[in-house]
């Protein structure tokens, strides 16, 4: 690699492509060959939405309002969701006679137990993967949860 890359030159070329709205560009000179491909400008947002929208107009699982099954999708950077790592039944307390592990407004530490998910008769303690304040509890006690479902929202401190 003797030849130095001339970034200034290439930048200029790309600017031109952008300005002129080109998709593909190839130039071959004696000792030099360049090929640039740009993504076509405004993409196919419309096309993409057609599918999920229409499919999701179908009956979905009755037990919960969970239009959003994708986990870590937050707009608010300080808001953190605890998601279910398994399928099972959600319990807020270790047994019916005990108080819940946590309540809304409570401050919690990392690795603190937040709830139990019962799966195949096994009681699985779910711990927090963040410290902060419990902003909301998103599932009712005794309700079924699926993998990836949001259980709590935590306001990180």
């Amino acid at each position, binding site marked *: 690699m003797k030849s130095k890359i001339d970034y200034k030159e290439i930048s200029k070329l790309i600017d031109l492509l952008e300005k002129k709205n080109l998709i593909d560009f190839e130039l071959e000179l004696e000792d030099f060959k360049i090929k640039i491909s740009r993504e076509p400008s405004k993409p196919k947002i419309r096309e993409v939405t057609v599918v999920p929208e229409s499919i999701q107009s179908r009956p979905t699982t009755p037990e919960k309002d969970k239009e959003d099954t994708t986990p870590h999708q937050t707009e608010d950077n300080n808001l953190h969701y605890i998601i279910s790592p398994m399928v099972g039944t959600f319990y807020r307390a270790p047994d019916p006679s005990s108080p819940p592990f946590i309540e809304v407004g409570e401050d919690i530490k990392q690795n603190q137990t937040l709830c139990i998910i019962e*799966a195949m008769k096994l009681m699985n303690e779910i711990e927090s993967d963040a410290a902060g304040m419990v902003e909301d509890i998103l599932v009712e006690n005794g309700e079924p949860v699926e993998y990836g479902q949001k259980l709590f929202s935590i306001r990180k401190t």
Partner: protein
Amino acid sequence: MFSKILIANRGEIALRIMQAAKELGIKTVAVFSESDKDSLHASLADEKICIGPAKASESYLNIPNIISAALITKTDAIHPGYGFLAENPRFPEVCQQEGLAFVGPPASVMRIMGDKNRARQEMKKAKLPILPGSDGIIKDFSSAEKTAKKIGFPIILKAAAGGGGKGMRIVRSLPSLENQFNIAQNESNSAFGNPDLYIEKYFENARHIEIQVARDSKGHVIGFAERECSVQRKHQKILEETPSTYIDSKLRKKMIKAAESAADFIDYQSLGTFEFLVDRKKNFYFMEANTRVQVEHPITEMVYGIDLIKEQIQISAGQDLKISQGIEFRGHSIECRINAEDPDSFAPSPGKIEFLVFPGGEGIRIDSAAYQGWTIPPFYDSLIAKVSSHAPTRQQAIKKAITALEMTTLVGVKTNIPLQLNVLSNSDFLKGTYDTQFLEDLIAKKTSS
């Protein structure tokens, strides 16, 4: 009858099971991985539960999550489809523990048939002809050598825990045996966690023929006309037809009878398939049994006009077989598996389906969970559709399949449609004189030319 069934699968077979369940008035629960959240099987079910991330081992193979999904949705039965957990005896065992019906044979039968070597011994007792080979597991090279010398080369090494061609090795002469034996042991160990191998005589120009049976808890049994599965690449079927050009009605009766007797012998209760090798002298030998619905079940349904999945569910619910002995098949049927793969390199071709139109019309059946706008995830198998044809004669069924594939429009991913058309117009295929070597030869010829 069940009131709700969980379908522990995805793709076209999940939709096929859903169809059968709905027709029987059974509610359906779909399970899906995160990468399948926009899948058709999830959207069309009455309920759907996300059971894990994309990786199959954490979702479609995750027994606790699937069983939990069944329990929280108050399901009474689970249908495993094919692949994934369908032949894992642990799955029906856990179902039983949790009080869930399993749409398949009992775990005990599955366990016997899942151990390919044990199945071989068991079927020998059932008086099925088995291939000359080892009496049991071959632990080391010297026993392998002894057996190979006894039965004569070529031989085939097979993994006892096998399936899908893994740990399978054809050995043509003694000098290469030791090396191949070691490779096969290692392959088997890494694929199934079990290095056990057994040996069978290998027939070069044989046919791969299978007999579908259905048997209920009262012992009513019915075997159906053979499916010809010799069009294979690396032990993967890509096109199947029924009946076979190679089997006359006398041999057909004999093979059906043998399969029915074998099912009786092990008190089989469900749908199942007995796979046979048929040699050039038209001797047939038991190879293995599949204790679940086959990918290629549609062609049997088309020639008989029956619904095997409904029967399978009904048998699991303790009902009697509804199909009566004496039913006759009509015409000829061919299934073409459409895979999202490069037709030359066979590399999988996942991606977004930009445009999709399936063919329809007379004698055409489509089994698919693909839709326009769907992105085929790269995590699972590449089967995107089965296009099956049915016509009074084989020649017409072939023409129908060709026409259907030509009228299929699929843009966005590469498919093996060109390969299928190549098979369907090949003169040996048209004559019906092909064997398990056919497709490999066809591909080799094309590549070399």
